């Protein structure tokens, strides 16, 4: 008991320091959002942070133009390489801190695929791991001050969701052939209800990429817009804006949680769709 008490006493300054750093980052985020605005004065436009601009000037955007989206996507890929490739380079038996983070992440996704998609879904584990880690890094890097959240754009998430949809459909058709259609023909239901249920199942199947992509983009966009709206209050109130900064700190903490959960949900839904494709009969 006494041991515990001294431990908590020792841990206290550390946690206060962590909280201070956290508040500082949130404050920097606000400053970034306010100064980021290309408009003069304290007019706050919460959606301005999502404008795609070319990095090296100019107005016209072609598919090869380096924009802030490409920059932040490249940065998230570099972050993944730094964590997963360079971090596990030592291959130590007693892992270093970075190596154990990489191992934890790998084990987490591996177990998720195994639990949800089943043993034969493990063949597609690299794809799901790629999706999860990319979305996770894009979400977390988007939370840095003055960063650009690539996953807040429906164009980005729709591409990933369509890729998942097409891949899963092809896997289902190739693996099961004609029996893939049993996904829509529910044998457990009474015969009279089956055509109606089949219609609903077909609609819900083709709506999957829409909800899959807009869930991620909508969550990221809404969270960042909320932070910027509070930043607008802080900008109007000036130096004494304690309440908005506290509110932003709270929303920022929530956003960290949401960033992780949305990456997790995207990956786990991919696993669910994969399971449907591998075992279409209910």
């Amino acid at each position: 008991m006494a041991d515990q008490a001294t431990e908590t006493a020792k841990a206290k300054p550390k946690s206060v320091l962590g909280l201070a750093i956290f508040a500082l980052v949130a404050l920097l985020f606000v400053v970034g959002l306010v100064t980021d605005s290309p408009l003069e004065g304290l007019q706050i436009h919460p959606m301005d942070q999502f404008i795609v601009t070319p990095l090296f000037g100019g107005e016209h955007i072609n598919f090869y133009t380096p924009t802030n989206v490409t920059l932040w996507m490249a940065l998230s890929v570099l972050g993944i390489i730094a964590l997963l490739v360079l971090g596990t380079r030592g291959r130590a038996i007693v892992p270093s801190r970075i190596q154990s983070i990489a191992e934890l992440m790998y084990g987490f996704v591996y177990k998720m695929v195994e639990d949800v998609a089943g043993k034969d879904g493990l063949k597609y584990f690299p794809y799901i791991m790629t999706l999860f880690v990319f979305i996770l890094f894009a979400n977390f890097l988007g939370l840095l001050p003055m960063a650009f959240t690539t996953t807040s754009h429906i164009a980005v998430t729709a591409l990933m969701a369509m890729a998942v949809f097409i891949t899963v459909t092809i896997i289902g058709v190739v693996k099961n052939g004609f029996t893939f259609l049993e996904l829509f023909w529910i044998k457990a239901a009474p015969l009279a209800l089956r055509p109606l249920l089949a219609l609903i199942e077909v609609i819900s199947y083709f709506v999957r990429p829409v909800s899959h992509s807009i869930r991620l983009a909508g969550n990221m966009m809404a969270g960042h817009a909320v932070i910027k709206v509070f930043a607008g209050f802080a900008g109007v109130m000036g130096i004494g804006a304690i309440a908005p900064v506290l509110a932003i700190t709270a929303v920022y903490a929530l956003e960290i949680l949401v960033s992780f959960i949305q990456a997790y949900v995207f990956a786990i839904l991919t696993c669910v769709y994969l399971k449907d494709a591998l075992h279409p009969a209910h």
Partner: protein
Amino acid sequence: MEGDIVEMGKFIGAGMACTGMGGAAVGVGHVVGNYIAGALRNPSAAAGQTATMFIGIAFAEALGIFSFLVALLLMFAV
């Protein structure tokens, strides 16, 4: 006080479409609340069902997303 009646209709429609997201909020709350109620009765079985809870949240949320989509379409596409 400028703009036309179409603009006004867009904003009103987008605002009304967003009320549909309240239904998704009720659904998500129901899923998580029942998960926690079950987890408190049988804590040892709770860890295995976390993934199921998240899948349920995602499906409940999907229908709220459609109303959000309608709001987005009204604001930017119509």
